[in-house]
């Protein structure tokens, strides 16, 4: 007891927290496969209940609530055209949520590994860029350009958003500066999305292990008390990741709407 309560707990916690490693490549593949299997099983059960006219199966009802939640989020943040992004956002939410839930019962989870999170963030931010370019390209094709040049010009129009407002020739250094800063902030979106999820999940595991190490002399897993905090983290982090993806999508598509809303309305 003496050694636990009257010494600096940080070295103990640090030692066990630092030893906590990710699942490794094979383990990561195993856990991702496990999560996918779990999602597939749930979706299979959900699909069974879809055949009835009124959803009686509780799992189907739960899935319906989840769908309504995702739909609400998309429509509230992105706007009326957000319905298109529901499958993408829903997939991200489902994978992250199930991956995080695995973290509650297993010593590690796919979302506690930076490579998995970074790949998801790259997909999300890459899709956002694609949508930004596609918005401009579609707009130009409505105006009568051929597809290749529409995509080409759309790419540069999308890039011109990063250079801030038009300031004139004398302010070119400042425009360049804004461009560099905006590009960096765009790249930081990947890092912020992935690092947030990774930090929360990995931090949860490390904290539980550290507290368990501290509780070893009295034979009591103190880390178990952190399960409540982890439960909160699981839900909030899955929400935050998808919410921020929605916000990024809305930023890109709103830009396009502001510039071409009049012309688009005339074209339709």
């Amino acid at each position, binding site marked *: 007891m003496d050694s636990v309560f009257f010494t600096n707990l*940080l070295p103990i916690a*640090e030692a066990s*927290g*630092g*030893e906590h490693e990710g699942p490794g490549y094979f383990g990561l593949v195993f856990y991702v496969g496990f999560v996918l299997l779990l999602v597939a099983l749930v979706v299979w059960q959900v699909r069974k209940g879809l055949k009835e006219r009124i959803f009686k199966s509780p799992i189907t009802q739960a899935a319906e609530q989840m769908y309504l939640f995702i739909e609400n*989020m998309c429509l*509230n*943040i992105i706007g009326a055209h957000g319905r298109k992004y529901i499958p993408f956002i829903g997939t991200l939410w489902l994978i992250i949520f199930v991956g995080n839930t695995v973290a509650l019962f297993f010593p590690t989870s796919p979302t506690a590994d930076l490579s998995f999170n970074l790949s998801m963030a790259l997909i999300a931010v890459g899709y956002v860029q694609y949508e930004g370019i596609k918005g401009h390209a579609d707009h130009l094709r409505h105006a009568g350009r051929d597809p290749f040049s529409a995509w080409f010009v759309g790419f540069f129009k999308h890039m011109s958003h990063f250079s801030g407002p038009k300031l004139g020739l004398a302010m070119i250094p400042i425009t360049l500066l804004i461009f560099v800063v905006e590009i960096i902030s765009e790249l930081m979106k990947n890092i*912020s999305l992935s*690092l*947030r999820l990774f*930090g*929360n999940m990995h*931090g949860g595991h*490390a904290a539980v292990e550290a507290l368990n190490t501290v509780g070893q002399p009295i034979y009591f897993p103190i880390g178990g008390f952190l399960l409540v905090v982890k439960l909160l983290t699981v839900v*909030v982090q899955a*929400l*935050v990741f998808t*919410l*921020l993806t929605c*916000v990024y999508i809305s930023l890109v598509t709103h830009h396009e709407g502001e510039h071409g809303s009049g012309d688009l309305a005339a074209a339709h």
Partner: protein
Amino acid sequence: MMMIGLGLAVLGAGIGFGLIGYGAMTGMARQPEALGKLQTVMLIAFAFVELTFLLTLFLAPGTFNK
């Protein structure tokens, strides 16, 4: 010394969290019908405050990400 720095970082993040929670709660109490929107914005703000702390944590070498 590094631990003091981390403690200061937590202090800043805690103040940030508290301010966001305070603002969101006053807003919700004044306008309960805007609860959903306030919660969304609150979570986004939480995420940004959290990120600054996480960046500190990961940039402080040898404490967390060995």
